[in-house]
């Protein structure tokens, strides 16, 4: 019964765990290779990677959420400003069995939403004015359930962790390649040096692609979780259809694009690609509708 969907959820979860492990492997081995090439032992490089990752993680842990929220121009709101929005978020928080997150409104006509925070107790959800005004109550509930699902599935934390790894790899590669240019050539460890250079050029791309892949898996997962929370997959599917091609947002940047419910840069319905942070909208809608159909078939029995 419903094995297809069950496997789907499990598969998405398992694969994303493997991808995260792979990102860690990429980061550690980049450090190792650079260390081996420059000093003859991998440990120095791994140590430096560890230090960079720790510094970035400390920043992300303490400042990450407020940084993302303020760069998107989000303002916290309470019940007096928008009773329906606050009610809807409180409802889905109850459905998820989580504490109520802080609620933010972004004064932008683009239609988008995101969640952030390192743990469910300190989570924030944000929605743009454009999205807030365009959706019905049920659709808004679907979107907020999707965001709450990201919080409950710890996606917000996973994405912060991955950003730290991507950042570490980028800094390591950059330092190494720049350092190479100024240093006298013709030292020892010739072959190792070639390996390290190739690695340093490729690793930033690899870790970024891994981050995107995790993001895509997690989007499907959050859609499915949202459907079980509200028992109303159709409302989320309707909302996603309205969102299609209208997610563009000024305050978003390349570093935060994966957080949003639909990609804030792509304005057309994209095809599945390794460079996308989100699965194609059409496919997400299709899966949600299948879920709704499955459920309608059962309740009519």
């Amino acid at each position, binding site marked *: *019964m*419903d094995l297809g*969907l*069950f496997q789907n*959820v499990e598969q998405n*979860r398992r694969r994303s765990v493997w991808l995260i492990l792979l990102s860690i492997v990429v980061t550690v081995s980049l450090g190792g290779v650079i260390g081996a090439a420059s000093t003859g032992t991998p440990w120095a490089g791994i140590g430096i990677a560890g230090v960079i990752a720790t510094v970035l993680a400390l920043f992300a842990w303490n400042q990450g959420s407020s940084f993302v929220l303020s760069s998107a121009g989000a303002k916290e709101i309470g019940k007096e400003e928008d*009773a*329906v929005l606050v*009610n*809807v978020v*409180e*409802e*889905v928080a*109850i*459905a*998820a*069995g989580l504490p109520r997150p802080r609620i933010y409104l972004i004064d932008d006509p683009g239609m988008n939403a995101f969640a952030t925070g390192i743990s469910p107790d300190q989570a924030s959800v944000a929605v743009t004015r454009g999205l807030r005004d365009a959706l019905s*109550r049920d659709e808004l*509930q679907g979107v907020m359930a999707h965001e709450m699902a990201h919080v409950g599935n710890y996606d917000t934390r996973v994405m912060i962790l991955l950003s730290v790894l991507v950042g570490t790899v980028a800094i390591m590669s950059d330092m190494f390649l720049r350092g190479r240019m100024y240093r006298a050539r013709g030292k020892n460890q010739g072959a190792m040096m070639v390996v390290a250079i190739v690695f340093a050029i490729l690793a930033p791309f690899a870790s970024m692609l891994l981050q995107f892949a995790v993001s895509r898996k997690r989007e499907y997962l959050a859609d*499915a*979780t949202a*459907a*079980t*929370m*509200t*028992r*109303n*997959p159709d409302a989320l599917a309707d909302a996603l259809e309205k969102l299609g091609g209208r997610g563009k947002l000024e305050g978003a940047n390349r570093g935060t694009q994966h957080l949003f419910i639909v990609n804030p840069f792509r304005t057309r319905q994209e095809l599945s690609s390794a460079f996308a942070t989100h699965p194609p909208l059409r496919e997400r809608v299709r899966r949600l509708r299948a*879920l*709704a159909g*499955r*459920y309608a078939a*059962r*309740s009519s029995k």
Partner: protein
Amino acid sequence: MQMLFAVSEMVWIIGLVVVIGVWFVGLYNGLVRLKNIVEEAWAQIDVQLKRRHDLIPNLVETAKGYMKHEKETLEAVIQARNSAVAAAGQGPAAAGPAENMLTGALRQFFALSEAYPDLKANENMLSLQEELTSTENRIAFSRQHYNDSVRRYNTKLEQIPTNIVKNFGDFPEKEFFEIEDPSEREAPKVSF
């Protein structure tokens, strides 16, 4: 030589005992955690039911001026509300039917209120209606969360090996919170 052998055997036995002990503690704590989730979930339902009970006097008060000819319906809502308040805090088995009565009375009230456009346009009524809609959702979601956690907990109690571990602590089976409602949508079965 023989002495050493015996020591290494001892180490193995002690190691095994420690591993089993740690495993047992893990299972026990897992049950405690699930039980606490169930109890928290029930407390959440209680909060939402109270929220619903608190809204109703206000609602009736606002409607009174407009729905002069619907005294009986308004009385029925108040009565259902009062018996729901009385049943609250007596566990899921008592609260369930009382809340059903209230849901039925409210549904009738809202069906009748359709005939009073002035009432429907009243600002106070509009915000009460939003609060009530939200409360209904909250109750449905907290019940859903409660029943899910009861199911998880009860299943654990029956499964090997937690069915043995449960005898070492206070782990009674928990009851579901049932509300008979044909219009209710059934959950799509997605397991995580």
